């Protein structure tokens, strides 16, 4: 146990010693900056931003196209498609990406877009739920969130959501893993600084699902959480777990006002 703590502390110190200041352009980032809040877009290299700027060149749009196709595809024992109940996604899904995670009474807890999609599939379509990180789920989540593009993130943390929000916030500030780091050590205390050769961002969630160059594909916010948790040498939580949905709620509130950018492009 002592050895573990020592290693953890040494490694954490090493990481923190590796932070160095990077010159920040204090400039105006347009819609990607709201007060002190800056989207991950503003931390990406110009070439990466250029890919997001062009909807044709953004490879995440391939996933979104697939999501759009699935929207009107019948599935399950009820032989229904999303469109059968929700008609045109451009109208019915507008705003969803900005206000989720949202409290869901039947479950007595907040629910994110991915879980809400599967809830609909199971209960209304009588279809098999999609795997969280499947092409189908990423495509549909991208398509649904895209309908809120440029709308400011605005989640409700009041009423029954409050205790879940508090849990998410606690998670954010809680040290974890052998490196003994909390989310805030990188994304609050050191955003704008380099960690080795990467520029640390504020860890905003407004662009997910995102096409990540490292992944060479589209991935969910929970996949990113799992990556972060692994990097501080802690055991990641499950896709769609309560821990991650609560954290997702906290992050959305923390970045409230930033525009929905899904599906974005990140390093």
């Amino acid at each position, binding site marked *: 146990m002592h050895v573990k703590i020592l290693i953890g502390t040494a490694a954490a110190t*090493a990481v923190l010693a590796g932070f160095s200041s990077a010159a920040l352009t204090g400039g105006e980032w347009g819609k990607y900056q709201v007060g002190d809040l800056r989207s991950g877009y503003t931390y990406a290299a110009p070439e990466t931003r250029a890919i997001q700027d062009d909807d044709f060149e953004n490879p995440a749009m391939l996933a979104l196209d697939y999501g759009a196709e699935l929207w009107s595809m019948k599935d399950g024992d009820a032989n229904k498609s999303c469109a059968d109940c929700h008609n045109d996604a451009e109208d019915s899904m507008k705003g969803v990406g900005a206000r989720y995670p949202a409290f869901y009474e039947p479950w007595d807890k907040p629910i994110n877009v991915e879980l809400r999609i599967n809830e609909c599939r199971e209960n209304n379509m009588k279809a098999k739920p999609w795997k969280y990180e499947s092409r189908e789920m990423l495509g549909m989540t991208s398509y649904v969130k895209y309908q809120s593009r440029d709308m400011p993130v605005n989640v409700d943390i009041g009423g029954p959501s409050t205790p879940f929000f508090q849990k998410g916030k606690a998670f954010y500030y809680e040290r974890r893993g052998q490196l003994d780091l909390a989310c805030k050590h990188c994304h609050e205390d050191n955003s704008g600084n380099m960690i080795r*050769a*990467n520029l640390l961002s504020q860890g905003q969630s407004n662009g997910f699902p995102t096409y990540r160059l*490292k992944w060479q594909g589209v991935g969910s916010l929970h996949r990113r959480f799992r*990556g972060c948790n692994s990097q501080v040498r802690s055991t990641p939580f499950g896709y769609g777990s309560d821990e991650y949905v609560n954290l997702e709620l906290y992050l959305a509130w923390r970045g409230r006002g930033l525009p929905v950018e899904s599906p974005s492009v990140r*390093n």
Partner: protein
Amino acid sequence: MTRMDSPSKVTRRHVLVLTGAAAAAAGAGLLPGIALADKAAVDAAIKKAAGGATLQSGRITLELPQIAENGNTVPIGIEVDSPMTASDYVKSVHVFADGNPNAEVASVHFTPANGVAKASMRMRLMKTQNVVAVAQMSDGSVYRETVEVKVTIGGCGG
């Protein structure tokens, strides 16, 4: 907790990687066991593409980032100065990366119907290296352009 059993437990190497030696260590250790194209093989491939003609400089413009933040997706724009008429046009441009496991990246083949000899795509670069373009003209002349691209080694498990 099972944290000590997790595959990503801290080893001495991890600690080293996390300190200043990071860039060099990670650069060398990215894909252990994979042989990189050696210089001679790259030169041979370029010579082959040139088909025996002398490699001249000029006419090619390569649009590449000086520093690529991720080697998985490096945008490249290729443009060759040419009237692109039936009697005078660019036939092909071959792109090589001399520090990749295989130096060949892509070849683009133009025709006068293109109007301009201009194309763009995205490529993978395993590390900092030279990107070389070899353009074959319809009159048999061959041009070469070389641009170095620095590839950032990711900080977060990159």
